[in-house]
């Protein structure tokens, strides 16, 4: 069960619109390493985990990722609010605008629609947690790539916050992997899948 809180986890107040940057930042909304992929990946992986602590990590990070999705959505919205047809045409935003007007729709920076394959659930705790550590690093790389292209402080600050959270989540998933290994055979962690083999 979830409860909605009427606030952002990190404030977003972008003064100047910038549809070019919106088209890049939207990748963290609906791109392959974006926040929607992260949230549903973790929340879906929980069901086949065997350890209650690991279930907790996946629940709490999956929930936080939904808050991050909302931050990115707010950024895309503020970067594209009240655009005129001239601004839309000049900024290269027209192809997106034709299909979605000024709505926020999950796609990658290259225009590729969100793909549920990004959720990545294998039903093997070691496999899934290793996937999650890689996912946090991939998302961190995307934030690094964005930060290299952006200097506006009111855009940079929420991106820096989100980048830092990727690093914290990577650390927690590493600990969750260690917790999982503690209950396995240290001489052969891969002898069996604790979620299906007896």
């Amino acid at each position, binding site marked *: 069960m979830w*409860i909605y809180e009427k606030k952002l986890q990190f404030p977003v107040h972008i003064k100047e619109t910038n549809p070019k940057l919106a088209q890049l930042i939207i990748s963290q909304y609906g791109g392959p390493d974006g926040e929607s992929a992260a949230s549903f990946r973790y929340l879906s992986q929980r069901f086949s985990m065997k350890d209650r602590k690991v279930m907790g990590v996946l629940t*709490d990070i999956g929930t936080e990722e939904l808050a991050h999705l909302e931050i990115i959505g707010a950024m895309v919205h503020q970067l594209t609010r009240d655009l005129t047809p001239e601004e839309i045409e000049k900024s290269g935003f027209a192809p997106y605008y034709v299909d979605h007007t000024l709505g926020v729709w999950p796609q990658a920076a290259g225009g590729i629609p969100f793909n549920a394959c990004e959720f990545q659930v294998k039903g093997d705790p070691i496999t899934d947690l290793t996937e999650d550590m890689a996912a946090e690093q991939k998302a961190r790389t995307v934030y690094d790539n964005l930060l290299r292209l952006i200097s506006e402080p009111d855009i940079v600050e929420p991106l820096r916050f989100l980048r830092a959270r990727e690093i914290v989540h990577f650390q927690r998933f590493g600990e969750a992997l260690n917790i999982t290994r503690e209950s396995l055979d240290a001489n052969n962690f891969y002898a069996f899948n604790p979620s299906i083999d007896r």
Partner: protein
Amino acid sequence: MSGTNSDRNSLMQKISECEFMMIDLGLYLDTHPDCMPALAAYHKHQASFEKHVAEFERLYGPLTMYSVNSDNCWTWLELPWPWEMEAY
């Protein structure tokens, strides 16, 4: 921890009932914000919800991470997760 699983389940049932009334009335109030009878009904269920949640959390443990209040251990992980067979 105290009380049996059936006490726990019946308290959870009460929470779920009040919560569902709040969700459904809240949805109605989103489109009818001036409907005073619905608002009064919302507050009635809200009061029961808060009472039952406080009772549940005192007896069995936190329902949200924000209501953890133990000084000496992290109680968030103690109750089963809702998809586990022993959950309420």
